C-alpha cells in the first residue's frame, strides 16, 4: 500500500447535456502524501471545486466522473460498495465548504451536528456523542463549548460557524481534509485565524490538506505544493516556495503578477499590478488547443491547434505548456 493519502489519476469530470458529455475537468493527475498540505488554485469555474467534490464523492447530476481513478489510501473509490464508501466519507476524508451560513442544518443544534459524526463513525450513543461534541468544540476554540453545544447555527457568527464546520470535519481524525475556499465568505479579520486553526489541528493529527482557493498568495504561504488549474486542465504544479520565484506557465506568471507584494517598488509609468486580460471560457466552449491561448501573452501559432501534454520540469514539478516541451 502506498503512502499516498490521495491519488488522482487522469481524472475527467463531464457535464452531461442532452445525453452528451462535455468534459469540465480533463486529465487531472494529483497526489497528496500523508500530512502534506497541497494547494489547488484557479479562477472560479476552472474546475477546482468539481475536482474536490469528486474526491469526496459529492458530485451531483449532471456532473459525473467519466474517466480516471480516484484512490484514497490506496483504495479505488469507484470499486467500493456504497456502504464502504460511506464509511470512508467523513471518517477518512472530510470536507469544509465555502459558505458557513448555509452549510449547517438550521434545525439541528451544533452539538447534534458534530455528535452525528461520532454516532456514524464511532458508534457512540447520544450521551457520549454529546460529550465528544463538546470536546470537539473546545478543540476548535469555541469559547464556552459546554454552553454553546446546544446552540443553533443562526445564533453563531460566520466565524464561529466555520469553526463548527471544522469541528465536524476533523471529528474523526480524517487522513485528508478538503477545504474548499474555507475563508472566502468570512470577514477579512478572522480569515487568518480560521486558516491557522485548520493548519494547526491538521498538523497535530497528521491530516493531509487539500486547500482550494483562488488566492495564490495564501496558498503559496501555507502549502507544501501548489497546483494551478485553468479551464479544467491542471496546467502547472510546483513546490510552493518555487512557484513564486519561478512561475513557468504564462497563466501562473499572470497570477503571480497580479499579486500585491510588500516591498515592491513602483517605478514611474509602470502599473502597480498587472492583470490577465479576458475571461475563462465556458465549459461548452472548450475547443481544441491550449485553453489559455486566447489570453496568453506568449501565444504561438500551434497553441490554438493542439493541446500541450504535461511535462516534467527539470527542477521538479510539472507543466502543461508548449513553451516547455
Amino acid at each position, binding site marked *: 500500500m502506498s503512502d499516498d493519502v490521495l491519488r488522482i489519476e487522469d481524472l475527467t469530470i463531464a457535464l452531461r447535456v442532452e445525453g452528451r458529455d462535455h468534459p469540465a475537468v480533463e486529465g487531472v493527475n494529483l497526489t497528496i502524501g500523508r500530512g502534506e498540505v497541497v494547494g489547488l488554485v484557479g479562477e472560479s469555474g476552472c474546475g477546482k471545486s468539481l475536482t474536490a467534490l469528486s474526491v469526496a464523492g459529492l458530485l451531483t447530476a449532471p456532473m459525473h466522473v467519466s474517466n480516471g481513478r480516484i484512490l484514497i489510501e490506496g483504495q479505488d473509490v469507484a470499486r467500493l460498495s456504497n456502504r464502504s464508501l460511506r464509511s470512508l466519507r*467523513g471518517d477518512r476524508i472530510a470536507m469544509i465548504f465555502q459558505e458557513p451560513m448555509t452549510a449547517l442544518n438550521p*434545525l439541528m443544534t451544533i452539538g447534534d451536528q458534530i455528535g452525528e459524526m461520532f454516532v456514524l463513525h464511532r458508534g457512540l450513543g447520544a450521551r457520549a456523542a454529546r460529550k465528544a461534541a463538546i470536546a470537539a468544540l473546545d478543540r476548535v476554540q469555541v469559547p464556552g463549548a459546554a454552553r454553546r453545544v446546544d446552540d443553533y447555527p443562526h445564533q453563531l457568527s460566520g466565524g464561529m460557524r466555520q469553526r463548527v464546520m471544522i469541528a465536524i470535519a476533523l471529528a474523526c481524525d480524517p487522513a485528508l481534509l478538503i477545504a474548499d475556499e474555507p475563508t472566502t465568505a468570512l470577514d477579512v479579520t478572522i480569515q487568518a485565524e480560521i486558516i491557522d486553526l485548520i493548519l494547526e489541528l491538521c498538523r497535530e493529527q497528521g491530516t493531509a490538506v487539500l486547500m482550494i482557493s483562488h488566492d495564490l498568495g495564501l496558498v503559496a504561504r501555507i502549502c507544501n505544493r501548489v497546483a494551478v488549474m485553468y479551464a479544467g486542465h491542471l496546467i502547472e504544479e510546483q513546490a510552493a516556495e518555487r512557484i513564486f520565484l519561478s512561475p513557468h506557465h504564462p497563466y501562473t506568471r499572470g497570477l503571480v503578477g497580479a499579486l500585491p507584494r510588500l516591498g515592491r517598488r513602483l517605478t514611474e509609468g509602470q502599473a502597480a499590478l498587472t492583470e490577465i486580460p479576458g475571461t475563462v471560457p465556458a465549459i461548452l466552449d472548450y475547443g481544441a488547443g491550449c485553453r489559455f491561448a486566447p489570453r496568453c501573452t506568449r501565444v504561438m501559432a500551434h497553441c490554438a491547434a493542439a493541446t500541450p501534454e504535461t511535462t516534467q520540469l527539470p527542477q521538479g514539478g510539472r507543466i502543461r505548456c508548449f513553451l516547455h516541451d
Partner: protein
Amino acid sequence: MALVLLRRLLQAVVTVAVVITLVFLIFSVIPGDYVSSLMAEKRSLDPAVAERIAAELHLNDPVPLRLGQYLVGILHGDLGLSFATQQPVTEMLGGRIWASFKLACAAMACAIVTGLPLGYIAAARQNRWIDGLAMVFAVSGLSVPGFWFGLLLMYVFSLQLGWLPTFGYGQGGIEHLILPALTLGIAPMALLARTTRAAVLETKTADFIRTARSKGMSEGRLVRKHLARNAFMLILTMIGLQFGSMMGGSVVIESLFAWPGVGSLLIQSVGLRDIPVVQGCILVIVLFFLIVNTLVDVAYLLIDPRIRYK
C-alpha cells in the same frame, strides 16, 4: 416570542371584527331584506303584517345601532335569533360545527396521506416519468370541480358498487364520511403534492444537505434527520391554509352530500336571507381559519429554532 403571538392574536381579532361588519353592512345597506323576500314568496302577505314582522326583527332600527347591538351580543356569546325559526343561532350552529369539523379533518387526513408521499416521490424521481405522472395527477386534482368529482364517486361507489351510502350523515358512522372526505380532499391533496415536490427539491440542493452527505451517512438517515424536517417547514404553512379554509370551502360539497354542517346551513340561510344565521356561519368559518393559522404560527414557534430565539 409571546409578543409575536400577541400581535397575531390582535390581527385576528381585527380581522374578525372587519368581516362581521362588512357582512353586516352588505346585508343592511343593499336593498332587499328578509321581509321583502317573504313578501316575494307569499304574495298575500299583508303590508301591515310585514311592517310588524320588520319591527319585531328590529329591521327598522338604524344600521349602526343594530351593528353595535350585534357586536355586543357576540362578546356575550349571543349570535341572535334566526329570522326564520326564532331559534338561537348558536344552538343551530352547535352540532353542525362538529359535523363540519369532522369532515374537514377527514378530508385533510386524506390530502396529507396521499399528497405528501406523491410530492416526495415526484421530487425524488425528478424529471422521470413518475414525476411527470404525479404532476399531471396533481394539476388535474386542482382542476376538477369538487362537486362533479363527488357525483362520480357517488355513481361508482354508491350506485354501481353499492359499497357506501350516497349521501346524508347517518348515525355519524365512518361509511357516510368517506365519499365527502375524498371529494373535499382532492384539491388540497393536489396542492400539497405540488408544494411538497417544490419543498423537497429546494431542500435537496441546500448546502447543509451536501454537508450531511459529506459526513458519510446513509440516504435513509439523510432523509430522516436532515431533509424531511427542513422540507416540512416549507409545507406546514400550506397545510394550515388549506385546513383553515376547509370549513368554508366545503359549502358546495356539504350541500351535494346533504352533510349537516355549517356550509349547508349557510346555503339554506342564504336562500332565506336569514341574516343572523348567515352571519353566524361566516363567523364560524372565519374563526376556524384564524384559529388554525394561529396554531400553525405556534407550531412554527415550537419547531423552528430560528423563530423561537428571536
